[in-house]
């Protein structure tokens, strides 16, 4: 399976934010998208996911066959929002996404163990701290399987230990033949992955 972008351009509010992006990621490849605020990192990820139309160029998933026909079907998109309901418990939230997304992978308990939050399952999601909330939404990546992870500032609000834990999870996903595209301005501690720098000093 390959994620290919050809001459991709994106615009926001009629103004071009980046132009001529090319990349070609195979199984086990990661891409870190860096750049200052407003350089179009989130826009790029949303275009890759298919949530925004590209101004020009194409993004496609090759060799996904029938199981993963396009990027939207094959990806986990972790945006700025955590996509969790504060009134429901952590377990209810994760169990919902596990069933709704299909392709169940880890159990809810196992996934919470993996992000180091084994005791919070029964708590309402709204009771958690910012970092814990983020870790629960990282656990969401684990409860159902997707080969492609699109991560927008995944480590926002995480402490050092959780960051290390999360890089181990990403490394495991890559070793497993997954693909990761992550937008960030904090080093993610992933070695041997390509970096794409958006936006120069102009603006």
């Amino acid at each position, binding site marked *: 399976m390959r994620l290919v972008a050809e001459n991709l351009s994106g615009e926001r509010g009629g103004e071009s934010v980046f132009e001529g992006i090319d990349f070609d990621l195979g199984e086990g490849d990661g891409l870190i998208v860096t750049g200052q605020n407003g350089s179009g990192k989130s826009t790029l990820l949303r275009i890759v996911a298919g*949530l925004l139309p590209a101004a020009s160029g194409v993004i496609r998933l090759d060799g996904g066959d029938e199981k993963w*026909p396009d990027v939207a079907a094959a990806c986990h998109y972790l945006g700025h*929002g955590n*996509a969790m309901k504060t009134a429901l418990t952590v377990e209810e939230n994760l169990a919902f996404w596990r069933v709704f997304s299909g392709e169940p992978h880890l159990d809810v308990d196992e996934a919470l163990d993996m992000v180091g939050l084994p005791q919070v399952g029964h708590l309402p999601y709204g009771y958690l701290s910012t970092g814990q909330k983020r870790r629960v939404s990282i656990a969401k990546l684990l409860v159902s399987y997707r080969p492609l992870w699109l991560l927008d500032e995944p480590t926002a609000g995480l402490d050092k230990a959780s960051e290390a834990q999360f890089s181990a999870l990403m490394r495991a996903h890559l070793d497993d033949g997954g693909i990761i595209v992550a937008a960030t301005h904090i080093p993610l501690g992933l070695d041997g992955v390509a970096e794409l720098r958006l936006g120069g000093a102009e603006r």
Partner: protein
Amino acid sequence: MLALFLRDVRLGVRAGGGALVGVLFFLTVVAVVPFGVGPDLNLLARIGPAMLWVGALLASLLGLDRLFQADREDGSLDLLILASDRHMLALTVLVKCLAHWVASVLPLVVASPLLGLFMNIEPLGIAATSLTLLVGTPAIAFIGAVGAAVAVSLPRGGLLVSVLILPLAIPVLIFGVSAAYGAVNDPNPFLAPFLILAALTLFFAVIGPAAATLALRSMSD
């Protein structure tokens, strides 16, 4: 899909969901009417079904603007749209409407017989009004989904949603009330307007989610 339905019903019923607020608003509106029109029991009985319908219509508009907005704010809406390969988006919208109806509007239907007593409606009329509410109110939720989808990115879209969808909900109101009157006033027919009401609900069950899907897709940035 069942998971989505259960999640939304749970959210509607739990604290902050606003299911109880709708019933309280309905109760308030209907309880105020006798003070306004005076203690004329015959008059109250005559306008009763119409008042119940207007009250239920307004109460079911409460919280409708949050149908997609809450999901948009926490990022769930993106994931629902991304999942459209697995779960057709129109179907997702339909399920969300049904969950909204069960959590917020069904309690209104259940409360309507009691409020019918307040209005001195005779038992047959109360039964007919509740039945027409049961059949007609889903149409309001389906129409509302369109308004909610159009206003999803507006921070104070609540009033706008109501203004957008009330004109479309008027046929539902007309046939709902005329069926309720037909059951008690002899020359007027009950079945014909009732069947049209049912047809309206089925019609909007198809049109509403499809239109809301279009609106959501074009608003997704």
